[in-house]
């Protein structure tokens, strides 16, 4: 039994508080241009420095955090919902439903996810909502597979078989007996999924296919910094660090949940 990942939890809570309430304390505009303060290194006045248009980096990271976290959580919610519905129906009904499930998952796994994202974003203009949809429909497969194999195991339990023989309606069996048993695996893959979605979003933003200016996310700030990386490391260093810290904490928490619930599924 491993210890609770207090360090990861506090980082996560800290970043969430910073992103959504940091603006109340640190009252600097993330949009304001300042030609006097271009590419300043971190200092007391600008704790994380400024970018090449003289905008304050801390304020931008706070603002970008809202977008990155929203996309991460939003995509993970949708992806998990798709995963639960597909996984449970495949595991419960088996047979033809399961066969079509396997084909669908194979199909999505065969497309390189990133290519699919690129192809979609290249013709739909990116916005927070579009990114959430795109990332979730390319990221539901892992959850679905895990839930499918879990549902198979649950479906083979004697009490489920008895319920089926007693012709209890399927939706009742699923809602009342399947979902509670699936809950642990759901939370594991959800925390894991949020991390994965934040990584996907930042990758897209990094290639210039993420949210459009004046909106910003950690990935897009990092991407703006890559042109001045040799003279101003801080512009890309800090947003990248945020992405890394948040995903690292989420994955740590997910790993902890796995060891607590004793559901060490192989996530890849």
């Amino acid at each position, binding site marked *: 039994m491993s210890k609770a990942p207090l360090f990861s939890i506090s980082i996560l809570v800290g970043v969430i508080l910073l992103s959504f309430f940091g603006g109340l304390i640190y009252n600097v505009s993330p949009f304001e241009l300042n030609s006097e303060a271009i590419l300043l290194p971190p200092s007391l006045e600008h704790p994380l420095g400024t970018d090449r248009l003289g905008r304050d980096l801390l304020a931008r990271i706070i603002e970008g955090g809202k977008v990155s976290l929203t996309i991460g959580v939003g995509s993970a919610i949708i992806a998990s919902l798709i995963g639960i519905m597909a996984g449970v129906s495949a595991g419960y009904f088996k047979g033809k439903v399961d066969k079509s499930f396997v084909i669908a998952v194979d199909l999505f796994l065969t*497309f390189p996810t990133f290519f699919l994202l*690129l192809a979609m974003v290249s013709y739909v203009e990116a916005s927070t909502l579009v990114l959430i949809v795109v990332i979730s429909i390319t990221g539901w497969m892992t959850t679905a597979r895990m839930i499918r194999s879990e549902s198979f195991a649950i479906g083979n339990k004697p009490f489920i078989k008895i319920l089926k023989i007693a012709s209890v309606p399927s939706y009742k069996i699923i809602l009342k007996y399947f979902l509670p048993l699936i809950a642990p695996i759901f939370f594991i893959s959800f925390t894991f999924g949020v991390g994965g979605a934040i990584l996907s979003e930042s990758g897209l933003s990094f290639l210039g296919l993420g949210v459009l200016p004046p909106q910003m996310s950690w990935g897009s700030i990092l991407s703006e910094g890559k042109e001045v990386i040799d003279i101003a490391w801080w512009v890309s260093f800090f947003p990248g660090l945020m992405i890394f810290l948040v995903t690292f904490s989420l994955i740590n928490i997910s790993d902890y949940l796995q060891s607590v619930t004793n559901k060490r599924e*192989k996530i890849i």
Partner: protein
Amino acid sequence: MKLLLKKLLYIGLMLLIISLISFGAIHMAPNSFFSAGELNPNITPETLEHLKRIYGLDKPLWEQYLSWVWAMLHLDFGISFATGKSVTQEIAQRIGVTLGINLVSMSIVFALSLYLGIKAALKQDSVFDRTVKQFSLISFSMPSFYLALLVIILFAVELKLFPIGGLHSLEQKSGVYYYLDIAWHLVLPIFVIVFVSFGSMAMYVRSLTIEILKSDYIFFAKARGAGEKEIVKRFVLPNLSPPLVTVLGLSLPGLIGGSVILESIFSINGMGLLFYQAALARDYPVIMGILIITSFLTLLGNVLADLAMLRLNPYFKRDS
């Protein structure tokens, strides 16, 4: 044999669906190449019609689809809208670089993960095990482009040990030096790929090994005095190979997808960079060509993995 036929049929079905989806999705896209402002704004409607006729865009959709599939069966993916060159040639020139880089990185990842994963599993909950685990989690959460930027700053800009990008130095080298030069350019990209992918693999090997070590035959092997080395060689490795081969087959799309980011950072002229440029320019023939080829490679990888599985695991032979 029957199984092989079934597998081939499955590949065919998958490719058909994939080709339909990618064709449909891209042709329903609101922004076409011919309206994206890529062309001369003074173009007359007649010239536009003429252009469309050259590319066969004036025919009904199903006819376009069929002729596209027919051409693809002859390895002809059409002509790139952006460069006017044959897509097959464009891809053929670059696919080697991308596959080569991924092959080398994947071999390193495998060797590293096997070593770390098995050792960690043998010494479960030791300091070594926990260190491997922490590094794996770091590897998993590290965005590849961020790591790439960091190593570029550190090793290319500050220490000037490795080049910032590209595949070749400016002056042409010959003989052995030509390959050494390429290798020198690829150190950083391969390091990044290995770093971001070894984590999940090592954890997978670790958890598989722990399962294997729990089995009765390991218990009895230990009871009759088999050493750690013998156990790993005779029991762990053979039992690890089937699941790992499957994972190898499945990891291909992720690797090629990851090439998009890495190749654009290190300006390596491979398939990933080509796809990125094509996606930005809405160059359909190139986009679709690459999608189909990578899907085909992935499916092929899966089937090869399944076949290898049959050889590695006699149990499945009985099943089918």
